[in-house]
């Protein structure tokens, strides 16, 4: 049984299709990262899974329970950290967490200790006496994460969990999310941050304009790009056109960056291509200043599968 399964899931707002017949599965105990720009349908999918929204058509199941037919049962086994933190403005963080814990039957004997520990882990303890409305954006976001962590649901959903959070805080939240997975929860993280996806994902689903474009592990997605490695070569002088043609003959895809002495090559195996490239450069009399070898980022993967750069999306 899948932890999450959707079949031809569609959601329409007026004339806009947010989801267009999405088929999507998440295995039990994995971290599934949904990667997509704003407007790709990520949040709509999550809102349907946590029963806030009803789909226009199709089905969605969480641990085998239909989200439309048995919404209350679904809500008993899932927890969500919203993209925009939601809390009672005039309550303190600990009071918000106590209310949340009580709604999900967290053992009263362990409740206080769990709340205190989680608040300390997420560096919220210092802000325990502030009202929610006085928390900073990052603190409110961490409180949102804390709700799900104390709940330890079967399915935990995090919608852009580290937006507005500083770098140190991001790492903390990511580690806690992985810890939650190790404790047995299935996790869905929606993000448009490549670094977050790379750090967390067991598998990645790329959503684009309400459709699933591709879903796999990160290494497999990167391997799927023609020319898995990227080699950037800086020359001391302008690169002769003849050299570019020769290098293109070595396999891969070589391009000369405009108004610079730099070549960028997407090649299958950098370790085979680089020695041949240096020989060709020596023959052409082009002096190499530096060579950098990188693997493609998820941004490149997104670009490859959708034809658009993740960062350029609205």
């Amino acid at each position, binding site marked *: 049984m899948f932890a999450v399964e959707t079949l031809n899931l569609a959601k329409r707002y007026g004339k806009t299709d947010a989801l267009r017949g999405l088929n999507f599965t998440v295995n039990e105990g994995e971290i599934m990262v949904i990667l997509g720009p704003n407007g790709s349908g990520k949040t709509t999918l999550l809102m349907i899974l946590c029963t*806030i929204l009803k789909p226009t058509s199709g089905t969605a199941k969480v641990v085998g329970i239909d989200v439309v037919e048995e919404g209350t049962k679904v809500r008993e086994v899932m927890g969500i950290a919203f993209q925009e933190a939601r809390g*009672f403005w*005039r309550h303190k963080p600990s009071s918000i967490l106590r209310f949340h814990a009580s709604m999900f039957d967290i053992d009263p004997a362990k409740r206080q200790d769990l709340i205190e520990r989680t608040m300390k882990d997420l560096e919220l303890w210092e802000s325990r006496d502030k009202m929610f409305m006085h928390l900073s954006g990052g603190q409110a976001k961490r409180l949102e994460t804390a709700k799900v962590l104390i709940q330890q649901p079967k399915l935990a959903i995090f919608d852009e969990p580290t937006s507005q959070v500083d770098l140190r805080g991001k790492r903390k939240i990511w580690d806690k999310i992985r810890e939650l997975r190790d404790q047995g929860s299935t996790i869905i993280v929606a993000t448009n941050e490549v670094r977050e996806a790379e750090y967390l994902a067991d598998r990645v689903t790329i959503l684009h304009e309400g459709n699933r474009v591709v879903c796999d592990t990160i290494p497999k997605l990167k391997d799927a790009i023609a020319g898995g490695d990227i080699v950037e070569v800086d020359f001391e002088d302008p690169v002769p056109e003849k050299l570019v043609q020769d290098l293109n003959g070595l396999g891969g895809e070589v391009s000369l960056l405009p108004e610079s002495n730099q070549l960028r090559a997407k090649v299958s195996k950098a370790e085979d291509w680089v020695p041949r490239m240096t020989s060709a450069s020596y023959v052409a009399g082009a002096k190499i200043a530096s060579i950098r070898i990188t693997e493609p980022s998820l941004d490149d993967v997104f670009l490859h599968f959708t034809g658009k750069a993740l960062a350029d999306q609205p």
Partner: protein
Amino acid sequence: MSQFSRLVRIARTDFSYFFRTKWLMAVLISLSLSDMLVVGLVYTRLIPASTAIGSSYFQFLVPGIVVVGLFSAATDTGRRIWLALREGVIQYYLTLPIRTRGLVGAYIISGGLGGIVYSGALLIIAYLSLILFKAPIPIQGILYALILIPFLFVLSTGIAGLAAFFASVSRRGEMYWVYAQALQVSMVTISTVFYPAQTIAQYLPAPIATIAEYNPLSLAAGVLRNSAFGGNALETSALASLLATSLPLATIGALAYWIILRTIRLKGKP
């Protein structure tokens, strides 16, 4: 945990929210106390007891103040619903393991509690004022006031329901305040909360006098005057009328709020 326990927890949290809004509390309490302890006591010395008001002016006015206090506290439910809808807290509520009707019930009950606790406090202050100024208090009146609590609670849920209705149909915050003010002006003005029924019948058209007579606020103020302060036995017909006029309001409000939650589930926004 049962659905009912969750409903109670949500109602309790929302109820506590009312008392956490300190500026609102300060405004409400200062208005109620100045009405009761300044206007009430001063006017009592100016206006002689008459058959029109049945007793001293203080004993005529205070039930009205208590009922208006109940009204103000119960209508705050609408403000809280409006905030919850606009700030997205309602979406958090929708992820909790409680049915939509439970959520609706929780808000209506919390509105009822807010009204009854606030007006109950005013009632206690009124009794203490009477003791302080050595005015007679019928002991049975206190007993009748206790018996009246569930009936006032139903009235309070009815008003909370109306406020929920207006909060649900308000697109903008200022519109909610306009609706709330219009509701207050119409319900308090066309009532016998602050004027005797005879005065209204004398100066206003008959249909308005009839509306004022069956206004649940008038009925509540009348029962309080007659029994809680007058010491007369509670009239079953008055209590039945109070219930009969309050329950439909609570039902309309609950239905409107339920429709809004359903709309959120379909459209993603109210």
